[in-house]
């Protein structure tokens, strides 16, 4: 059993509830003990930092101080939280005066941040601590070479806080392959989906989402997988808006990597939050389960 302090992030409880549910569901079979950080709040977020870059660091720092006390690595499944928390930790390390001020503020809650915490992304933990070699033998539901476009988005690989390449990353590909699915070539795998600007600059973001859907479809993907709650929401919930704006007919389910892992581990779709996906994964699930039945009846 491996132990981590766990930071779900706001969206894993709301717009990306499927992420929160599926991460919980796969933890036990993978011998991953995720201990939710008690009293956590928002990581600080990009919008907060854009209005007040110093105050956003304090918001992050409270979480960092809470996590540091546990003595465990902090793991988050949210790519944005991962970047925000790491960036705040680096700012505090690089700016001693800011760190002093932040700690003076944290002291009202008897907290202090020393700077020893490791902040990691769930994908890094799955790949490097749990490892594909351990995951592969646990596969109970064959995925039958399901064609998957591994979509990293930006924050998992940029800036360079983790071990993967910033433009041609491999971690998701390796996880997908360990499950018996096929990672299709996906040239736009680490390009931007528009992020939060899907709200304020929708038409701009829809153009970017269209390119990502197009690249996945052209490479024969039956679904897209991503770890990022915002990428998933943009590609999944806004897919019909892309279709009406560009007169296209994409029908690509967008799963969290934790949902795909869960399916392969034999966990029932509902426990992985697959009913919260907007583009129905029904056809894809039929492919996985039906082929299994055929194989069975053939033997």
């Amino acid at each position, binding site marked *: 059993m491996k132990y981590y302090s766990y930071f779900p992030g706001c969206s894993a409880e709301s717009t990306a509830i499927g992420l929160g549910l599926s991460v919980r569901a796969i933890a036990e079979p993978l011998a991953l003990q995720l201990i939710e950080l008690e009293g956590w*709040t928002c990581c600080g977020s*990009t*919008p907060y930092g854009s209005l007040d870059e110093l105050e956003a660091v304090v918001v992050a720092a409270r979480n960092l101080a809470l996590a540091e006390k546990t003595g465990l690595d902090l793991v988050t499944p949210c790519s944005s939280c991962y970047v925000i928390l790491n960036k705040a930790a680096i700012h505090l390390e690089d700016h001693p005066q800011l760190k002093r001020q932040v700690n003076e503020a944290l002291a009202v809650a008897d907290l202090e941040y020393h700077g020893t915490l490791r902040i990691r992304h769930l994908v890094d933990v799955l790949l490097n601590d749990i490892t594909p070699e351990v995951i592969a033998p646990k596969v109970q539901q064959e995925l039958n070479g399901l064609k998957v476009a591994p979509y990293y988005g930006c924050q998992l690989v940029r800036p360079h806080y983790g071990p993967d390449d910033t433009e041609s990353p491999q971690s998701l590909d390796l996880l997908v392959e360990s499950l018996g699915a096929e990672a299709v070539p996906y040239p736009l795998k680490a*390009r931007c989906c528009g992020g939060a600007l899907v709200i304020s*600059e929708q038409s701009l973001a829809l153009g970017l989402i269209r390119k990502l859907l197009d690249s996945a479809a052209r490479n024969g993907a039956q679904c897209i997988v991503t770890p990022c709650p915002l990428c998933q929401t943009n590609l999944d919930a806004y897919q019909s808006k892309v279709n009406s704006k560009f007169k296209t007919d994409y029908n690509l389910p967008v799963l969290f990597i934790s949902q795909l892992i869960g399916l392969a581990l034999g966990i029932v779709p509902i426990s992985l939050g697959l009913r919260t996906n907007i583009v129905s994964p029904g056809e894809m699930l039929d492919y996985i389960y039906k082929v299994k039945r055929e194989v069975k009846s053939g033997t």
Partner: protein
Amino acid sequence: MKSFVDEVATTLGGGHIHACIQCGVCTASCPVAGEMEYPPRKIIAMIRAGMRDEVLSSSSMWFCLSCHLCGCRCPRKVKPTELAHALESLAIQHGYSVKGTYTPAMYRSFTSSIRANGKVHEFGMMLRFYLLTNPLAALKMLPLGLKLFLHRRMPLIPEGAEGKEELSRIIQKFREVRGSQ
């Protein structure tokens, strides 16, 4: 009086600006450079030229998607993404009004939600944003909002973080500390 470039260089995100050699890799890498009046390379040149009002009242940095391609490719380790957010923060701090984009209003709604709840409450945040900027667009967004709601992805009532009171006290104290130093 401090020059504009020094003012920017003392922010958290602008610390690397002196290293820029104006090669333009940032602008060439940016997926939204075409939307910006002043793309990253140009805005750095303008900061160095002391064009404070033009830069801080510009909508350009508000188009940054935080994709970090620019910073990862920069041969001088400048971080234009972080610079963009530092410029946004300076513009807000000094009361500049920005035209041509709704992003500042969206960021305000987002941040208010965090300050009130300790977590982001998406429904409240989006409702506030659309009512403040474009109530008609809210109507257009209704079907998508409903879809998210029906898929259990859009809770109507904010849950509120357990640690929100403590966070508020910490923020309050930080404002006092900042103000006195």
